[in-house]
């Protein structure tokens, strides 16, 4: 199967196609994690994006039945250097290629993924088309140009109705923008009694179940497209402890009056150092975001910037100076990535205990 990737800047990568025989237009981004391709691709935050993996050898440990962050692949397409057709791991039930085919996702291998990464680094995340179909370059370019990228996939990937995960511990209400299983797992490990709401749910409805705390999930796209979420959170502030991750962090920040902006090519990987100012300690974090909170717009009188990215100094976490609200830009649940930041879930539990 032919595999073709064309970037908005005009560059063309011809490789070998695999997975679905299909064509997709999306935002091309890269992730630098060396492990966890299955978890990455099933992370709803990748909805609308074509994922270029910098680690060249993909498929080594196959696909398992447990490494899902949601029930399907959300990424629109996958670009890799080298495809492993002989996976080896006791949990593997199929090959990477079989899985993509089953999940109807087009993919390309044998292209220079490092060059693609460097191009994104230089020009920023950009529109791209991936196809494994017989398509002329001109047709592909045309299709790409005609397609408008969407920034509002949280509207699609979040839950559509209230979902329950019962537990005996703290009652947590989740506002779902496209949550990862990893986060739910971390809360359930702490025996939380979880009710998950579509993010547009009214504050009134959420509060009616009298949760101990509110959790704002991760999700794809531009947080300003999820304005209903921001409005809801504004109403929840001061009433319940709130913890947000990734988009949840952006939504909370916006509800507290801050603004977000789009990074040139975002942060995607499992190796970024983040410093926790209060602890004066650094942690390795898993990240997946395009947008960041603009520190200039943070109301420093009420809101404290608690975490900073050690590489570029971007905001990685905030908390309210008086109210029990905090959030982080990165993913303390890892999935994939390090478990170093698991303590944040404990902080959330503590916060709910204190009320």
């Amino acid at each position, binding site marked *: 199967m032919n595999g073709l990737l064309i970037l908005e800047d005009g560059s063309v990568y011809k490789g070998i196609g695999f997975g679905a025989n299909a064509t997709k237009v999306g935002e091309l981004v890269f992730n630098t994690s*060396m492990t966890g391709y299955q978890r990455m691709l099933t992370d709803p935050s990748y909805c609308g994006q074509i994922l270029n993996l910098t680690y060249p050898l993909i498929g080594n440990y196959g696909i398992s039945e447990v490494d899902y962050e949601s029930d399907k692949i959300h990424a629109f397409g996958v670009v890799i250097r080298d495809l492993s057709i002989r996976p080896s791991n006791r949990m593997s039930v199929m090959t990477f290629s079989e899985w993509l085919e089953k999940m109807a996702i087009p993919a390309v291998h044998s292209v220079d993924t490092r060059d693609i990464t460097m191009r994104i680094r230089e020009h920023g995340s950009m529109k791209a088309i991936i196809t494994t179909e017989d398509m002329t370059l001109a047709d592909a370019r045309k299709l790409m140009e005609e397609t408008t990228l969407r920034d509002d996939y949280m509207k699609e990937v979040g839950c559509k109705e209230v979902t329950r995960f019962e537990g005996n511990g703290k009652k947590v209400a989740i506002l779902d923008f496209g949550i990862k299983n990893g986060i739910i797992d971390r809360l359930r490990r702490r025996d939380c009694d979880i009710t998950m709401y579509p993010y547009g749910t009214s504050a009134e409805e959420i509060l009616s179940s009298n949760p101990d705390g509110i959790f704002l999930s991760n999700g794809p796209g531009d947080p300003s497209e999820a304005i209903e979420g921001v409005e809801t959170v504004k109403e929840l502030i001061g009433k319940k402890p709130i913890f947000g991750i990734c988009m949840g962090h952006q939504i909370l920040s916006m509800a507290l009056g801050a603004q977000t902006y789009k990074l040139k090519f975002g942060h995607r990987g499992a190796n970024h150092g983040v410093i926790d100012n209060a602890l004066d300690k650094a942690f390795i974090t898993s990240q997946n975001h395009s947008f960041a909170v603009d520190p200039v717009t943070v109301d420093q009188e009420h809101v404290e910037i608690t975490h900073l990215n050690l590489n570029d100094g971007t905001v990685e976490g905030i908390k309210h100076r008086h109210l029990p609200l905090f959030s982080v830009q990165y993913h303390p649940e890892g999935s994939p990535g390090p478990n170093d930041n698991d303590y944040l879930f404990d902080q959330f539990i503590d916060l709910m205990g204190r009320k």
Partner: protein
Amino acid sequence: MPLRSDLKKVVMIGSGPIVIGQAAEFDYAGTQACRAIREEGIEAILINSNPATIMTDNQVADKVYLEPLTADALESLLERERPEGILAGFGGQTGLNLAMKLDEDGILEKYNVDLLGVNRESIKKAEDREEFRSLMYEIGEPVPASAICNSLAESEAFVEEAGYPVIIRPAYTLGGTGGGFAYNHDDLVDKVESGLEYSPVKQILLEKSVKGWKEIEFEVMRDRKDNCIIICGMENFDPVGVHTGDSIVVAPIQTLRDSEYQMLRDASIKIIRALKIEGGCNVQLALDPETSNYIVIEVNPRVSRSSALASKAAGYPIAKLAAKIALGYSLDELTNYVTQTTSACFEPTLDYCVVKFPKWPFDKFREAKRVLGTQMKATGEVMSISRTFESALLKAITSLEINLNSLSLPSIHEMTDSEVFAKIDEQDDERIFALTEALRRGIATIDTLNERTKIDKWFLGGLQYIIDMEHRLASETITPALLREAEEMGFVDEEICIVGNTTRDVLQDIRVYNDIYPVYKVVDTCGGEFEAKTPYYYSCFDQVDESVRSMNDKVLVVGSGPIRIGQGVEFDYCCVQGVIAIRELGYESIIINNNPETVSTDFDISDKLYFEPLHIDDVMNVIKKERPLGVILQFGGQTSLNLAEKLDARGIRILGTDRKSIDLAEDREKFNQLLKELDIPTPKGYTVTSKKEAFEVIKDLGYPVVVRPSYVIGGRGMQVVYSDDELLKYITEAVSLGTEHPILIDQYIVGKEIEIDAISDGEDILIPGVMEHVEKTGVHSGDSISVYPPHTLSNEVADVLIEYTRRISRALNTVGLVNVQYAYDGKNVFVIEVNPRASRTVPILSKVTGVPMVMLAVKAMLGTKLSESEYGVGLYKKQKYTAVKVPVFSAAKLTDVDVAVGPEMKSTGEVLGVGYTYEEAIYKGFLGSGMIIPTGGGLFVSLKEYEKNPHSVGIIAEYQKIGFKIYSSGGTGTWLTANGVESETISYDEARERIGDDIQILINVPKVVNKMTSKTFKLRRRAIERNLPVLTSMDTAEAFLIAIEKKQAGELPVSRTIAEYLS
């Protein structure tokens, strides 16, 4: 927590001589640590006994003490220098042990010195098995059922419960020395005894074996704030059961799902936190592929071979950062050296695959058992980088310099199927070739091989890909697409030609037409996320090239590849000095090398580093890319010199001595002809290609003769032969070795051996110094004790040597370095060998004379005349002190190797003893070598006929005079009595029993070497196992007397810097 402001002066302890298990990686680590110290404006004081290292050069530290790594020498240094801190985590086990001793003896307290980066508790907890185990229990990390045993009975009791197999590890040893697996009671008895013997604390760990589990390593760093990061995770191709130093290692980890990876990462971090290590640490774990259960194998609480590998694999200079941490910094305060803009507190991500392949000395030690186990046997290693595992693996094979560019080993081709399986089961150094052969023949599958060996199917799958490609090349027409695919997979042209039954020209056509050339990618720690400032490249057949050729004039230095016997760190020293010289002279310096342990492959040494095999194709690709004005081959030893002909044939300019001269020096017949013309004597010699010819030439030469194959390094296959029987045996063995080269038979000159290294500009030469060997001819120069300046040579003889060297240099038109070895029989000076390249002695002579030999050589190559330099021409002034090089053997590691010295080189490293007198220097040399110096007790002597001479009598009598009781073998006893020396005659068996009890020294010059069944072989081995001196040359025995007398007198040598001696 920034830099500790109280630090003004810090001492760095080096790792001493190179031995198996502790090699060039500590030169790299220590050099980085010294630089890290100096960057902070702190004075760096270095102590190391190894003169071949880069770190002991005057540019690396502020002061260099080339002194023995003993507590006494350190105390002498501390007394003079009064530093605030000591860095001990960069000198391997040697450095750590020494620091522990200083601490225990209260010396650190006495001089108020802080141990930086490591503390005694961390070391103890990590290295004492019992403490480590209880710590693991405490923090809930799984360790295998195990027991600390101090006796066989205790061991038996443990096995009663845990069952076989068990693994035995002696406490506090290098490279797993003395350990092994036991599958039954016999094994147990054997291994427990040797383990107890090897452990300096007479303690062993018995452990339920997890043989066959995946072996995973993490390089972890931690700072004072408790920040922890993983620099690199590595997975061993060989599952648990093969020492990691003998395993093929792949980075990053390939076959773990994220959750498994994170589980092991968490465990590693938990462990370094519990140990409170500040700096680098290596954690080894085993994972059961069937259940994902894991256990912790062990921890190295310091930088190590693995951290050097991880540094090169990930582009993250662990030692440098570990040093900064030891000086007070925290990781978040430091910058990533590669990007220079982002933080050092992150985890490198690789966008390539790295393969490390060990280099074993079995080509030299043909008697040694090749089976791999818990005891490390490799002397060095190569690393390769590519975008796929298959390609990295094939590049690694090519880098090994074993005349192989593929996974097909001719000797295995010829095996029957059952022999192939037997080879696989044996688990030796050639197993990977047997595995591929089984796949090639289709007599096994990935699954059956996995069952048999427990090697992960993913790795076996990699071998299968390679075999599939072999089959395709053999059966399909070679199209551009196929050629590209084969190249991507790492196949070199020669192999494609052989397998695909085609010619280079055909390939060349396809290549040129379709532009199938490699591109170069950068190792940047971040997968391309950030811009990298480091010029660290590897080749791959991908699409876009990142290496940008500058407009500067460039010089390419070809490195020396993996460390092996005969070609050690001294050549890396020359390469690094060469690069520094090139930069200083205003040229852009480019280096190509493949050894991850060395300083030369540190990315901030040269302007550009190409981490590549030293195969002609790879070197040519770099040349094609960079178009340097010339290539320097003479620093990388025989490895690089061997490229001369091929590069010359391709029209590449070789800087320095040209190809013709190299060829002339190496071609015996042409060279002998030249010497004849120059009127310089040389041992008479012949080149023979048949048995008949050999016996013919003996009629002319007479015995003894020296025999050897042509074109060898380190005297491989060389032997002194005294009789027809011996000659016949040699010839049949040498021919059966399958050497394509003829055999050389030379007259054997008995006398002194002298070595000269000179710099030549084509007209003049400069001889910084002359070194005289203590041992007579017949002992390989690498294994001889050698002395600067010569202490017995007359000025007349010295003049002859200088004149001969000048004549030869001029006649050969050598430009750059040249090494000449001479023999002096009391009347005539003979030329034994000329090497138109750097030699083992260049770093020594550079240091002890203060003449920057490599710099002058580079200048000469680039056209500056010696007469313009401040060092002048001719023989450089003699220094007013003596330096003695003493070889160091890794005899304890290779249990089936003979320690008797001879024409074949056996030592792995060396130390230098420096003193104002010859005696002081000799004493320091022996102290530095780590040899125990007994001051009394028994001495057993047994000499071959040839050595039963008055000289020997005098030496034995002297031992007796200074208080040793002499024991002798029958023949030697009779001879001694006849010559007035009383001795007690005992049998070899009895001598063996009594070694270590009343017998403290063994003097044995055997008739037959390398024969494992001989009684004297066993005797020598026993003495080695008991860590007692084994002197196999009477000259060594004579020199050793000096050391004993010094020790008896209770002399404590003073430590001094090299600069002090020179001033």
